[in-house]
């Protein structure tokens, strides 16, 4: 008699993910877990209460999720090709409604030697804002607008 179906014994870790769940930097960093690594750098995007002096009530993020995860993985590959001391990359972006002060994105990079982490981290967030199909709508008391940095 075959074993009953159950949860897999494997822990499946997604390094590049779009999710509606709240984000934790510790949790994203734990996806990199590797005791050989000496340093991790993260970028944490936080929902701001204003842009251009206008009071934001909350944000709505929308994604093309399949392509967003694919482009996040592409950014990871670009980084590892360009900065060879970077060991692992994880990027998790939250979508849906988000309140002021909540975390919208966590980028985490690990390296045995830290020198290249910082340029790579800067590249990761710039590139995310350039190619990843995720959009954000600011909701004010008197209206709303889709924002982009482009």
């Amino acid at each position: 008699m075959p074993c009953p179906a159950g949860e897999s014994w494997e822990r499946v870790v997604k390094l590049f993910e779009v999710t509606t769940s709240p984000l934790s930097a510790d949790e994203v960093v734990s996806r990199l877990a590797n005791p050989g690594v000496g340093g991790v750098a993260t970028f944490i995007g936080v929902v701001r209460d204003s842009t251009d002096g206008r009071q934001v009530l909350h944000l709505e993020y929308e994604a093309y999720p399949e392509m967003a995860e694919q482009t996040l993985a592409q950014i990871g590959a670009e980084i590892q090709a360009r900065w060879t001391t970077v060991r692992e990359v994880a990027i998790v972006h939250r979508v849906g409604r988000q309140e002021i002060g909540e975390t919208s994105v966590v980028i985490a990079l690990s390296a045995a030697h830290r020198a290249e982490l910082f340029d790579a981290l800067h590249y990761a967030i710039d590139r995310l804002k350039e190619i990843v199909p995720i959009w954000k709508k600011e909701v004010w008391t008197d209206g709303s607008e889709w924002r982009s940095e482009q």
Partner: protein
Amino acid sequence: MKVRVRYFASLRETVGLEQEEFELAAGSSVEHLLAALAGAHRGLDTRLAAVRAAVNRCYVSMGTLLKDGDEVALVPPVGGG
């Protein structure tokens, strides 16, 4: 041939659809598709200059030829982070 067109964010609101099946002549390019969509959806025309196109989840140039069953996304300026 038929392609699936997906709309997001401001374009989704302009068109009023998340996605649709769209019938095209064989040999059409992304550019041909966009022109046809602009004819079919009021308000889309003026928005297309800032739009990038992705076919099967990869960005492509406007001259890229489409084939039956392709998923074409109209990508307005992104703003994650």
